[in-house]
């Protein structure tokens, strides 16, 4: 099914009839098949679905960590590899993946020392003028993320939530055009998770990049996203994309609102339907 949204200009993300198969012969599993997805610039999109629905595969394709067997993946009109070369993609993996020998500040500033030629490559890619690419003040960003006291601490001295915040700041520090996040909060307890969602939204309100967010949690998806993309397994595919029309900023008050729960119920119902259609 088509997960497209009406757009003008070059979309931030475009997947056209993407297919990805792991393995060969009878042992082959189709991780993704016939996937179409178009994401306009600046939108927060969540991918949700049961295990094996290919949401992580889709994310890796966008991040240029894998190639599709069929179809096409475009990031701002160029291939993921070209987008990586221009440092247009920020990745937040499931674990914080910080370097244990560097302080928090040096962890988040290291990307600036890497692939210095990226800036020029980025200028050559279309609709550059729309985007700010000045290097942000990383200290300020860390303070905003509540890591002001931890600038010079080592990752091992921080809590799991603080480490994940540092990883998010590292990705935002690239001023990425597309931020891809692979279940970044799944290892955290619920309180930490909610406060991190708040902080993620704060940073995103300010820097306004396109976000592709993989999650297992329905309420997380509804709370964060402009669009929730529901996926189903065997083969991995997109079954529905639901626009979440709730006002921002979405603070704690949102949890009490009926419309929020209606969206949650809608997503749950679609997930269940996807699950049953597969079982049938």
């Amino acid at each position: 099914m088509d997960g497209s949204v009406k757009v003008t200009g070059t979309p931030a993300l475009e997947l056209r009839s993407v297919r990805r198969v792991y393995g060969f012969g009878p042992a082959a599993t189709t991780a993704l098949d016939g996937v179409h997805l178009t994401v306009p610039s600046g939108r927060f999109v969540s991918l949700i679905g049961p295990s094996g629905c290919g949401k992580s595969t889709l994310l890796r394709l966008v991040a240029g960590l894998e190639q599709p067997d069929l179809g096409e993946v475009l990031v701002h009109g160029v291939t993921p590899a070209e987008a990586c070369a221009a440092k247009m993609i920020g990745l937040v993996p499931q674990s914080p993946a910080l370097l244990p020998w560097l302080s928090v500040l040096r962890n988040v500033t290291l990307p600036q020392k890497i692939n210095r030629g990226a800036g020029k490559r980025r200028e050559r890619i279309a609709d550059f003028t729309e985007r700010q690419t000045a290097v942000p003040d990383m200290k300020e960003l860390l303070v905003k993320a509540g890591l002001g006291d931890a600038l010079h601490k080592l990752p091992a001295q921080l809590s799991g939530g603080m480490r994940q915040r540092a990883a998010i700041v590292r990705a935002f520090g690239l001023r990425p055009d597309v931020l891809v996040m692979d279940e970044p909060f799944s290892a955290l307890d619920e309180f930490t998770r909610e406060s991190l969602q708040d902080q993620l939204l704060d940073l995103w309100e300010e820097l306004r990049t396109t976000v592709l967010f993989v999650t297992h949690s329905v309420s997380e998806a509804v709370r964060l996203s402009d669009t929730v993309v529901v996926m189903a397994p065997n083969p991995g595919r997109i079954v529905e994309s639901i626009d979440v029309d709730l006002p921002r900023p979405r603070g704690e008050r949102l949890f009490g609102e009926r419309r929020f729960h209606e969206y949650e119920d809608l997503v749950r119902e679609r997930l269940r339907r996807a699950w049953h259609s597969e079982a049938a």
Partner: protein
Amino acid sequence: MTVADERTTAPVTKTPPPVEPSRFSLKHPRSRIAWIRPAVWLPLVVMLVLLGGLWHWGAGQLPYLLPPLSDVGGSLSDELGYYVHNALVTLGEATAGLGMGFVGAFVLAVLTSELPLVRRAVMPIAVVLNVTPLVAIAPALVVAFGFGPMPKLIITGLICFFPILINTATGLRSVPQQVLQVYRTMDASRVELLWHVRVPNALPYLFAALRIVFPLSIIGAVVAEMSASGSTGGLGTAISVASSMNQLPVVYASILVLAVMGVLLLLAVTVVERHVLHWHDSTD
């Protein structure tokens, strides 16, 4: 604080008084202060005294096997210059050989971790070289290179080579997958990845190898000196010459100097490791 009230007021579990840590490194206040306590150093001292007494008794019973400790001490103090000179020769061979082995092993570790082709070609040979007793190669090297420093450097280098190669290669390749993915999405070059991620990641592994290899380097140098009997200097030569002339005090004094050298080298590695790997669990 006197020793007497230290003994009465300081049970082993007591934490140091709050002013104390500032005088020491903040990172390891406990381990440094611990040595003040008799409970920590007394067992070792008692053991040393006991062993010394046992030696003294044995030397009285078997004068042809054990020299009296006083003779060993006398030889050391009378001919200090001789021992220092030979110790420096051995130390020079050991460190130069270690240096060669280190550079070779490190470069090869980087090559094998970056290029699978090199890994498949080189690793089997390195393994075979490692299981070959290098003591057996020593005489052949002496025939080939003579009594000069060359065979000693080669043997020491070879002995140090393998632990450094294996550990460094493991460290370079054990960067977590998700870390690599983060830097791959920034299109980090191989050199950038190596310099900023892989080499720092390999440092704990490298230091584990160095702890093994520093004492080994002295073994390598001594073995090489002994195989090349007729060398001009070094404690290994001193031992083989003295034992052939039945000068037991000189033999044992040389052994003692070697042991002290080994301890000092190990201490040097530990000090450097603490500074370089302050972030790593192993230095806590």
